[in-house]
């Protein structure tokens, strides 16, 4: 296109200003991508929750345990399809800052209830044969460079150590992936039978149940029925959809998230306004030049296209590189796996980011360009003399 040279020359007009503008847009969109990643980290649990899964916990709080015998009673209730229990183990690997979730589960039921986790048949077989075996998520394996066959010693302030041992000695049997974007693969699961035999206190107690209802539409009714079933017993329950449970969980750290999101948003929009204003300013300074182009016979439309091309190049140079870099960095590895187990830039955020980049280019270019071409040529030319 023959106008490219003209656009390029204009971009080079004030190299320092253009460079700084591109840089600030770059920073803004890098920030935006991280913003979306953080937001996703806080809400992924809610979003990926299955509508047909309920969590049944102690009515008073999540910390209080329920009897393992509830599994049978739950399974016997009408409308319930499958039941699995989990218990917060709180195991620590070397030091507390290495935090990750670790829980005893019953493998077969676990597979059934959480089909989003995929594990090879060999791994399942090995886990079936290894009493102290564990399966770990891909993110966790990457974080500590663990592979099948590795031994992981954990200590648990909640449950203590097995009789006569100084640690819980686990062996990695398999690494699971996920078929669902946003699902958390930062956890470790070990066998409940091993856990229950080895623990020295609280035998027969579990943390909570996850149950699958036959019909997602009846989830609310089933939850009410569960709570009624255990009412007036020493262990009253509270059943709620997995999404609500995750939301409640996220709420606890959510305030920090909300503050972070608010601050980052403010910074993002401030940078955007400043960059947009700079771009607009550089067009306004050229009102007279645009007037000369009009005198030469350039149409308003062509002038608008030239100015927009220029501002869009600046916006895209900064914005797309910023979004791309954030995406690449998080794709390569999670910088804070202990804090935010799920941390990635959602595809939707990339699309929103792209639209904002284009909008920035168009708005900051179009406003001064429209003002310039609307100005009668004669007046644009009068400005200098």
């Amino acid at each position: 296109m023959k106008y490219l040279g003209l656009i390029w020359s204009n971009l080079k007009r004030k190299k320092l200003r253009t460079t700084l503008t591109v840089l600030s847009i770059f920073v803004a969109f890098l920030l935006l991508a991280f913003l979306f990643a953080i937001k996703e980290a806080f809400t992924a649990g809610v979003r990926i929750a299955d509508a047909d899964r309920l969590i049944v916990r102690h009515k008073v709080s999540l910390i209080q345990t329920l009897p393992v015998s509830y599994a049978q009673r739950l399974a016997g209730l009408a409308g319930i399809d499958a039941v699995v229990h989990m218990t917060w183990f709180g195991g620590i690997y070397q030091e507390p800052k290495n935090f990750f979730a670790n829980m005893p589960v019953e493998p077969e039921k676990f597979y059934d209830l959480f089909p989003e986790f995929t594990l090879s048949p060999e791994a399942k077989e090995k886990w079936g044969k290894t009493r102290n075996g564990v399966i770990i998520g891909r993110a966790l394996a990457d974080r500590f460079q663990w592979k099948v066959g590795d031994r992981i010693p954990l200590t648990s302030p909640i449950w203590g150590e097995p009789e006569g041992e100084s640690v819980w000695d686990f062996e990695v049997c398999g690494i699971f992936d996920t078929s669902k974007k946003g699902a958390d693969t930062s956890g470790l699961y070990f066998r409940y039978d091993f856990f229950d035999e080895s623990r020295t206190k609280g035998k027969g107690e579990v943390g909570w149940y996850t149950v699958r209802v036959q019909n997602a539409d009846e989830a609310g009714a089933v939850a009410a029925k569960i709570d009624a079933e255990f009412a007036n017993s020493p262990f009253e329950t509270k059943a709620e959809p997995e999404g609500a449970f995750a939301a409640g969980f996220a709420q606890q750290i959510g305030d920090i998230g909300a503050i972070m999101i608010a601050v980052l948003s403010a910074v993002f929009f401030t940078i955007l306004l400043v960059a947009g204003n700079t771009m607009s300013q550089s067009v306004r300074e050229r009102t007279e030049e645009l007037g000369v182009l009009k005198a030469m016979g350039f149409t308003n439309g062509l002038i608008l296209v030239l100015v927009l091309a220029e501002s869009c190049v600046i916006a895209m140079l900064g914005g797309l590189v910023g979004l791309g870099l954030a995406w690449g960095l998080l794709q390569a590895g999670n910088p804070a796996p202990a804090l935010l187990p799920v941390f990635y830039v959602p595809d939707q955020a990339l699309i929103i980011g792209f639209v904002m980049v284009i909008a920035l280019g168009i708005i900051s270019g179009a406003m001064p360009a429209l003002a310039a071409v609307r100005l009668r040529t004669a007046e644009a030319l009068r400005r200098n003399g």
Partner: protein
Amino acid sequence: MSSLVQIKDVTKTFHRGSEDVPVLSGLNLTVAKGEFLALMGPSGSGKSTLLNLIGGLDRPTKGSVSIGDDRVDQLSERALAAWRARHVGFVFQFYNLMPVLTALRNVELPLLLTHLNKAQRREHAETALKVVGLSHRLKHYPRTLSGGEQQRVGIARAIVTDPTILLCDEPTGDLDRKSGDEILTLLQTLNQEQGKTIIMVTHDPHASARATRTVHLDKGQLSTAQPE
């Protein structure tokens, strides 16, 4: 000689807020093809306004402006842009070159609107710069040229499309006597040797002396008589 520019009963009134600013009132002017017309008058008398009407940069409040067969005052914005590209070359007092483009690329600019290919555009631009005597300054940026040289680039840019008429608004107004004279000689040559029709606004009797005819604008009307 056939007439090229025909201005009939032109009135131009600007509006500044609620106030009307009458500038031209019932003005008539005919310029023949091949004329070199000097347009003089006190500051604020409407010389630039008249030039802009002729060049299709502005529209009269009343009356008609015809250039050749075209009723310039009646063309649509779009058609007017195309008409300017084809028929008019502007020369400005402050040259108004693009600072980011070399002399050659400044002159090439109006050719972007034509169907010429890159090589042809370059050739035309070089020829125009040769006509104004700047063959040795093709790659220079405006800020590295003297005022006189910049104005010659401005003239090269105005003639590169071979327009029907050249409109110059105080082309020597910002130059010293010597550079101004060179520019006037250049315009005179273009008029005499290439038959270009030129309308030049000027304050300088020395400049108007080079023209084939001089008209004076005062109080919205034209007169050929010298004001005392």
